[in-house]
């Protein structure tokens, strides 16, 4: 579900109650947001243990730092910022992270601006359930190969459905920078998927 500006109705009241030290308000915020936080962390780290530890860190931070939340941004945006940072920390702490060079990962063009290579239409990818597992792995591996900042932008925008403005607030970047990062990430992913699907797509 996409977050709209202002977040979940009722967040403000819960946040005020939590600031006064009401445990029930914390429990209510936990219940409301634990799924989102876990999913975000899981989609960034692709590791169940990292995602669980990130979720623990996030809600400890919410409890302890709620006094720092000034209400200028929506609570959900503040929470997404903490969660994204926690997930990225887990990701960066993991050894052996080899990421593709995003500069070279997009499509190639000739000097006159035409596509340098033929562009096939693989948009109608097969829905065969037996082959879906391999396809999932290919897409997941392609996302995993993105540099962390690009991955975070893709997860927040394309999976969580935040607006460019909201992603910018969460990542502490300009809207322009977010749009550029997203587009480059999608172009890199499209190239990887094109290589796979143009080579014959899923094989049993």
């Amino acid at each position: 579900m996409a977050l709209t500006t202002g977040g979940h109705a009722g967040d403000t009241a819960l946040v005020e109650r939590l600031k006064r030290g009401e445990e029930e308000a914390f429990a209510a915020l936990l219940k409301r947001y634990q799924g989102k936080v876990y999913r975000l962390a899981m989609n960034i780290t692709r590791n169940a243990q990292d995602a669980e530890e990130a979720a623990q860190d996030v809600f400890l931070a919410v409890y302890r730092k709620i006094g720092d939340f000034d209400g200028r941004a929506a609570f959900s945006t503040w929470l997404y910022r903490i969660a994204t940072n926690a997930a990225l920390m887990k990701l960066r702490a993991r050894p052996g992270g080899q990421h593709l060079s995003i500069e070279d990962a997009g499509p190639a063009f000739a000097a006159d601006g035409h596509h340098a290579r033929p562009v096939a239409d693989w948009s109608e990818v097969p829905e065969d359930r037996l082959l879906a597992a391999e396809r999932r792995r290919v897409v997941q591996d392609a996302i995993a190969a993105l540099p962390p900042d690009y991955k975070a932008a893709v997860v927040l925008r394309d999976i969580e459905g935040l607006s460019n403005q909201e992603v910018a607030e969460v990542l502490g970047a300009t809207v322009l920078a977010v749009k550029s990062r997203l587009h480059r990430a999608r172009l890199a992913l499209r190239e990887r998927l094109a290589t796979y699907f143009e080579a014959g797509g899923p094989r049993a």
Partner: protein
Amino acid sequence: MRSCKELVDLLADYLEGQLPPDVARDLDQHLADCPPCLNFLKTYRTTTRLIREVACEDIPLELEDRLLKFLRERLKRAPGA
């Protein structure tokens, strides 16, 4: 006439309807005349669909329980630490 490279550079804004009308019209025209770019646009859209398709959906129930238990214990021991 816009080039294929320009179309690709502007594709995200084009799909979100955020381009000035004259630029969007140029790209409409380019797409009508350029099958490779039309294929590129379709597969770019499919890419974002596939990203959503492989996303992890739900928090496991047992994890909800573990998270609540973890937080209760930690916050009881050292609420502000």
